[in-house]
């Protein structure tokens, strides 16, 4: 059981770092896109409110939830491997 706990703890720590990094990166990319759209369309008015609204939409989007795959893929692969090796 100790081996299992050690593996899961190390894996979760690593995956959490990866999840945080990908989340921050993805949000910055979205922010850069919003800035670009503001410039290209020549919009006027409150620029920061426009960007904040866009980021809020991003926070609720399905795209952001896809980052959860960072956890799902490795843990799913381990579960699949355990099944294939031992029970197939």
């Amino acid at each position, binding site marked *: 059981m100790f081996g299992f706990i050690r593996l899961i703890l190390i894996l979760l720590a690593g995956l959490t770092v990866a999840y945080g990094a990908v989340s921050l990166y993805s949000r910055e990319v979205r922010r850069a896109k919003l800035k670009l759209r503001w410039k290209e369309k020549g919009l006027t008015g409150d620029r920061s409110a426009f960007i904040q609204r866009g980021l809020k939409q991003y926070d609720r989007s399905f795209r952001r939830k896809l980052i959860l795959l960072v956890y799902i893929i490795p843990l799913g692969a*381990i579960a699949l491997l355990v099944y294939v*090796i*031992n029970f197939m």
Partner: protein
Amino acid sequence: MRFIKWAFLITIWVLFGAFLHYTLPQYDVVRIVNTYEERQELNDWTKLFWSKPDGQSAELINRDVQFIQAVRPNGRNMVYRNEDTGWNWPPYFKFDTANLYTDANDSISTKANPEWVAVMHYGWRNEFLSVFPNAVTINPVAGPEDKPANWFSIIVLVLLAALFWAIYVRWRRFRQARIDPMLEEVEDSLYAAGDAIAERKGRFRRWLDSWKSK
């Protein structure tokens, strides 16, 4: 310097290749002839070629290990160990050692009436170090020619090659964009400094010469 660089690179890649060759799964088509259990002394560095069972205390220096004896189609022999990998490295997550032992015993066949099986295993056989590959799964196959395709290893190697290529390309681009211009700049300013010194020297000499009587 060039020689050292190449020796270093070749050593790194050979070690990495050996690591992959040890860790990735391989298939053997064999006929299982017997199984046995033997107490193994695991008190020196070669214990790194054996599994570390979860319940094993750090002080334990010997324990029983199951073995599977097999003969390949070309008549040469192969002996596998049969051990749990558990949650440790390499990540095969094998817990069904006892079940595999049962299957292996069920597949025992004679030379007169052979029953061929594909043994998926990892690890090396080495007679000098008494190292055995670890059998992971046993599946019946049609005949000695019916070797399963090793898709898992192929996919892993292709993904690894893609990863290294991506890193290499980015590194090269980074070097061309950032490091090479900087080196050139350093070189240019070195030459400029050299020229300036030469010119100074020339002026100093001319001044000295001006004191000489003509």
